[in-house]
């Protein structure tokens, strides 16, 4: 006890009682309260990007990431059998679009769209998420290619929609031209064409790649040359039949 304080005994009994009773009531009320995650239908309409920018008080990078944490907390689906089944996807895409406008260099919205929201077992919802990835890709292809490449993968293996997968893969090959974009991403369309039995088109693409001189790794060039030979053999076999 410092010199500036009086002994505890001088505090009236009713003040002690009120303090302890209120403290106990507070703890009990908090303990009984069901915290719980917000319900699925609770995602409100997305704000305009300008509104989010205003609310972030000049910290758009932090604001964008905090908004993503908020969005992902809605109907966050631990081990549920049908995750995000009640989520309003058009609204969700509105939020993702606003976050991307707030910080266009953040990978978060596209990562969440392609790796989380597009991987739901509901095909119509998955397509909405994939289309968002596709529409956003053109804004900065050399930064956002990975999300669209994954979207092509999902379209092929989850949705079994090869034309859609080819469309996405073709856009990656066409627009993501920076050196840091790996060749497998630029070559995805070839393998999708093979799966579609479009062997001639795949052959032309591989031949074009080999002739263009874009392949700097000799191993990669050898691999594709081998692939070209296999394709030619398959085409010859098909023509014989």
């Amino acid at each position: 006890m410092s010199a500036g304080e009086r002994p505890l005994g001088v505090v009236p009994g009713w003040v002690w009682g009120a303090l302890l009773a209120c403290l106990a009531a507070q703890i009990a009320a908090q303990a009984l309260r069901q915290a719980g995650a917000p319900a699925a239908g609770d995602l409100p309409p997305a704000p305009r990007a300008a509104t989010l920018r205003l609310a972030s008080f000049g910290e758009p990078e932090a604001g964008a990431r905090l908004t993503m944490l908020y969005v992902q907390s809605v109907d966050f689906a631990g081990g549920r059998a049908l995750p995000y089944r009640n989520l309003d996807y058009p609204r969700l895409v509105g939020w993702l679009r606003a976050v991307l406008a707030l910080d266009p260099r953040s990978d978060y919205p596209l990562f969440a769209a392609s790796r989380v929201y597009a991987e739901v077992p509901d095909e119509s919802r998955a397509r909405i998420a994939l289309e968002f990835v596709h529409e956003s890709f053109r804004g900065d292809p050399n930064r956002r290619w990975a999300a669209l490449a994954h979207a092509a993968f999902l379209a092929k293996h989850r949705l079994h929609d090869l034309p859609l997968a080819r469309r996405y893969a073709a856009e990656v090959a066409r627009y993501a031209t920076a050196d840091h974009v790996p060749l497998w991403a630029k070559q995805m369309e070839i393998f999708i064409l093979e799966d579609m039995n479009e062997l001639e088109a795949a052959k032309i693409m591989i031949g074009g790649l080999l002739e263009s001189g874009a392949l700097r790794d000799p191993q990669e060039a050898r691999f594709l040359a081998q692939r070209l030979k296999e394709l030619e053999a398959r085409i010859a076999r098909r023509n014989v039949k």
Partner: protein
Amino acid sequence: MPTAILARLVLLEARRGGLPWLAAGGIVLALGLGAFLSQVALTESVALQTAIVAALLRACAVFLVAAQVASSVLREIGDKGLEQMLSLPLSRSVHYLGRLAGFAGCGLALAVAFSAALLPWAPPGAVALWGLSLALETMLVAAATLFFAMALAQLVPAIAATAGFYLLARSMAAMQAMASGPGTDEGFASQLARGVVDAISLVLPALESVTRTEWLLYGPPPAGAYASALGGLALYTVLLAAAGLFDFHRRNW
């Protein structure tokens, strides 16, 4: 040198008043919250932690400087210490600028400490640019709070005026974008609103272009833009100091 002595007294008061402990508490709180939020992030966990910590530390530095300046000045006014100091054979400019230099020193110390806390997550060069910008920003806030504290001579109005000024300055670019963005009609009311917003922005510092988190996440800004932003801060700080001096000289204590 009287100005330096007054500045030293201000720094001494801040140290004895527990400002270093509050700064340490702010760092611990920001790091803790950043670490927690990065755990629930799906991706960009380091970027998220950096962004959150930087934003919190910036707000914390500004708040601590404003609260320190307002409480120190108003305590001095309240217990008549300022009147006693004014009886010394020193000009009013020395009194005012000495205190301002001391508060600017507090801001500088906070900026150095808060920048050091960001070093594990961002490149040292970017952190240095961010820290220098934060130091100038806190100096501006110190000058604004000193002006409002001397002019209003009440704690709550002084802090409220500083907070309003600061938040308005940080939101001004977003407000201008909203006022002139797509979807706004071309009626008289819209044009008037746009004109008012543009006019207000002329007398506010461009705080949205300084101490930017994007420097820590995506690399330092172009040298010209950075120098221009910091030059604007320095100019506005001098403007606030001049306005404060003007008011301080004509006031009867």
